[in-house]
């Protein structure tokens, strides 16, 4: 096989990110692909055509994606007329509606119903049938627009931003320094929490008992109330456990300052997490908001306690293994349903070095639109920066509260399944208690009729939410896609990023009910079938026996498929990844937008020792350093220093023969346990350059913070490779991969 394959000639996404394919020329008014990206921009017109397209047909939606300056979504307020919507299908007015009858009627593009134009919205049409006031109407010219919602769209007055913290104060969380780091981060973010002056805040801590804090603004310091009966939890105060931040600011700061010292001598090893969760629910259910949970110990007391399942290694390879990746207790899913009903989103921060059953805990986040942050073996000396950065981002990023997401599409197509973190309320409505710019959702399409008669399919995503400033708004993204009868067209306009995103989510969901091997096989089979179908289209013409042919648009697909099979949630068998790791990374991959997922699957590899050793630097040298290398063993030179960056961590690979003054200057002591070494800046130029370089890599995507892990190339005969090194080797290096035949 290898002789046939010239591995250097294989396509790799080294020149920057994979760009999405868009139909800018035909549909210039489509929304930007960062909001809505279809797996292929051409929709098949028949079931038979769809059955020949083995890749998923669907879309990835990131409704609140951050827009660069100058491209913000315009806000429109229909004061007198109310929001213009189609009477039959309730589609919002968008650039693709057509005006007829001199401007007095408009035709909906999704259901073709003819609606009346209200008097205040009327404008004459010019000779080409377009309204003369188009330049004053962003909702008729832009694919993404935001409407101010009138009172009919509100079940209750707009809620204030509310942040609630549920913190584990057992002995391991104090010893690891988590408590101090969390308190410090919250304190530093108090000024930046969105929603001033209405922001509300509250705290509950727990170990074997639950501690409530009265934060009334007239107190000089917070009052702690302890509830020890975990079987029958009650809330000791009706008010003042949840307070207005600007009024009780001083009390909150006093609390955060004293939090680490309050528990520093604790000897408590238990964790009554389930009861504490119920207590938090009882306090928060009047208003809703974001609940952030900090866990350091496996829940051991009261309802919802979890048992040590991670050590059941004998079930791997049998039919029972998927049960390990699913929640055992229905308590968490039930709590998540309750949370969503009262507009509470839950984020879980897990820090333990032992098994914490992320599979069960993750279900709370999964069904309430939150996410899981995993910091295994957290030590504040080493991991503090990462926690601070990511937690601060979670607190301060622009959030949409009490939100509902609905996606509408033209006649003849229908969205069948949704993948991501949300609660599905009906076939096309997703409930999201709190959604933000880092969350993306994927959905799959199917054709309802055997043959589509329409020429274009329109998609409209609408997110109804309350902004942090207390305004109820509806963000609408509209896109159009042509209907084709030719499979080749579909391949030509396929988008690798969206396809990989969907395949990845489907595969991770498959691991919840079948073996890892089956999930991997399903991924490979799908890609193989798709490429085989493509080959059948063109093989006759080119007579290419023994070679792969693939469409230009999907050239990286096999590579990403391979990386997916080697990624932590899907790789290998039992010993290759910890159970908690699998679940945590799996749940993160379910919410990632396309670009970040692609980077995680195929990280960048950059050689930096030449840069560090250069005698003098030109100013723009830093910009040129980003030349990526293919992830093969041949790329790694023993004399070099390399950085892997997958968006979540940096791995600094140190070659065996690396020049010793680099090592000296960077203060790397090879005798020490490299997994606990932290990079710090020392006085010399080389170290400064390295830190600046890493900073530049971090800034390219601020959503996660990469910590450095050092890995040394060692001679296997002398010492067994460290666990990190194994993981990296297995994940990051391409081995030969099967020819698709």
């Amino acid at each position, binding site marked *: 096989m290898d002789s046939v394959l010239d591995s250097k000639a294989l396509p790799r996404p080294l020149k920057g990110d994979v760009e999405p394919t868009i139909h800018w020329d035909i549909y210039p008014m489509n929304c930007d692909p960062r909001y809505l990206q279809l797996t292929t921009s051409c929709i098949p017109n028949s079931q038979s055509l769809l059955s020949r397209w083995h890749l998923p047909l669907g879309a990835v939606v990131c409704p609140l994606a951050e827009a660069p300056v100058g491209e913000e979504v315009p806000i429109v307020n229909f004061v007198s007329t109310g929001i213009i919507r189609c009477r039959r299908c309730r589609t919002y007015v968008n650039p693709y509606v057509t005006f007829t009858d001199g401007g007095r009627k408009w035709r909906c593009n999704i259901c073709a119903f003819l609606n009346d134009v209200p008097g205040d919205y009327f404008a004459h049409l010019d000779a080409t049938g377009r309204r003369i006031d188009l330049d004053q109407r962003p909702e008729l010219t832009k694919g993404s627009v935001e409407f101010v919602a009138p009172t009919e769209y509100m079940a209750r007055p707009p809620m*204030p931003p509310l942040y609630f913290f549920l913190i584990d104060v057992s002995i391991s969380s104090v010893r690891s320094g988590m408590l101090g780091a969390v308190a410090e981060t919250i304190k530093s973010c108090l000024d930046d929490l969105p929603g001033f*002056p209405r922001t509300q805040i509250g705290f509950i801590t727990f170990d074997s008992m639950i501690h409530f804090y009265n934060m009334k603004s007239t107190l000089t310091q917070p009052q702690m109330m302890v509830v020890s009966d975990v079987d029958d939890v009650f809330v000791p105060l009706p008010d003042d456990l949840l307070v207005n931040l600007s009024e009780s600011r001083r009390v909150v700061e006093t609390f955060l300052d004293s939090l680490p010292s309050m528990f520093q001598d604790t000897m408590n090893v238990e964790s009554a997490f389930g009861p504490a969760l119920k207590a938090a629910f009882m306090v928060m259910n009047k208003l809703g908001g974001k609940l952030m949970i900090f866990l350091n110990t496996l829940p051991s007391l009261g309802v919802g306690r979890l048992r040590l399942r991670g050590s059941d290694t004998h079930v791997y390879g049998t039919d029972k293994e998927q049960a390990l990746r699913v929640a055992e207790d229905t308590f968490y899913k039930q709590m998540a349903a309750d949370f969503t009903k009262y507009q509470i989103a839950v984020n879980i921060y897990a820090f333990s070095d032992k098994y914490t059953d992320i599979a069960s805990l993750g279900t709370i986040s999964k069904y309430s639109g939150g996410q899981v942050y995993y910091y295994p073996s957290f030590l504040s000396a080493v991991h503090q920066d990462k926690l601070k950065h990511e937690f601060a981002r979670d607190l301060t990023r622009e959030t949409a509260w009490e939100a509902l997401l609905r996606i509408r599409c033209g006649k003849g197509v229908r969205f069948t399944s949704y993948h991501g973190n949300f609660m599905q309320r009906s076939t096309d409505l997703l409930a999201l208690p709190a959604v933000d710019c880092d969350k993306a959702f994927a959905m799959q399409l199917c054709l309802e009729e055997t043959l589509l008669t329409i020429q274009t399919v329109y998609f409209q995503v609408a997110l109804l939410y309350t902004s942090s400033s207390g*305004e109820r708004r509806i963000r609408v993204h509209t896109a159009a896609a042509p209907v084709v009868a030719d499979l080749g067209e579909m391949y030509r306009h396929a988008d690798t990023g969206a396809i990989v995103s969907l395949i990845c989510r489907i595969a991770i969901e498959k691991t919840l009910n079948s073996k890892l091997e089956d999930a991997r096989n399903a991924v490979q089979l799908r890609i193989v079938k798709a490429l085989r179908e493509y080959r059948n289209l063109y093989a006759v013409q080119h007579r290419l026996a023994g070679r792969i042919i693939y469409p230009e648009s999907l050239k990286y697909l096999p590579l990403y498929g391979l990386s997916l099979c080697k990624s932590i949630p899907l790789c290998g068998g039992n010993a290759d990844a910890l159970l908690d790791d699998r679940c945590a990374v799996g749940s993160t991959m379910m919410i990632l937008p396309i670009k970040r997922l692609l980077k995680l699957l195929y990280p960048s590899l950059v050689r930096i020792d030449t840069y560090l050793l250069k005698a003098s630097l030109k100013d723009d040298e830093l910009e040129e350093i980003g030349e990526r290398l293919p992830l093969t063993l041949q790329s790694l030179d023993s004399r070099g220093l390399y950085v892997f960056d997958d968006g979540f961590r940096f791995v600094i690979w140190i070659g065996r023969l690396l020049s010793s003054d680099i090592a000296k200057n960077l203060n790397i002591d090879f005798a020490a346990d490299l997994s606990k070494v932290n990079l710090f800046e020392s006085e010399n130029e080389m170290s400064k350059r390295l830190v600046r370089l890493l900073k530049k890599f971090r800034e390219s995507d601020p959503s996660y913070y990469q910590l450095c892990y050092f890995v040394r190339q060692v001679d296997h005969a002398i010492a067994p490779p460290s666990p990190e090194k194994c993981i990296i080797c297995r994940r990051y290096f391409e081995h030969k991969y099967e020819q698709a035949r």
Partner: protein
Amino acid sequence: MVKVTMIARVTDGLPLAEGLDDGRDVPDIEYYKQQMKSLFKNLSKGQNDASRMSIESGPYVFHYIIEGHVCYLTMCDRAYPKKLAFQYLEDLKNEFERVNGSQIETAARPYAFIKFDTFIQKTKKLYQDTRTQRNIAKLNDELYEVHQIMTRNVQEVLGVGEKLDQVSQMSSRLTSETRLIADKARDLNRQALIRKWAPFAIVIGVVLLLFWVKTKIW
């Protein structure tokens, strides 16, 4: 106790602010909130005859103040003193006009002044317990006034009592004297009559006497 507070613009019924976490211990709170919204709608149709009114509904009472094109509406228990409820609305009105007065007319979206809910929350807490010092002082003020007026009234009543006595005395005197006068008038009348007709009567009497004497002699 003050249960729910809503502030809306009178001209079109646009909600401007609402109390945070209102009415959480009231069953059927949605029903009453609906009633409050219908009230706003009625007011926007121009039927606001009174600038202050209390409207009863089941076990609760709605109190409102309309001023400056804004209606401040609250729902309270029946037992809650009306005076305190209107004092609460006055406090809200003063603060709302101070902070948002200039922007009320131009507010375009619902709950444009939702930031006011923290103030509503604070003020509600102050008025929550009818037995707190502050509220008792307020009620006592009112009681004092009522007491004053009551005292005045008693005095007036007493004064009126005196006057009444005098009046009744006077009237009885009047009647008795009138009777006397009536008698005297009758007498005088009689005398006047006699005086008028006396010469006639004497002349006729003399003529009749002469005629009788003549017939007697003949």
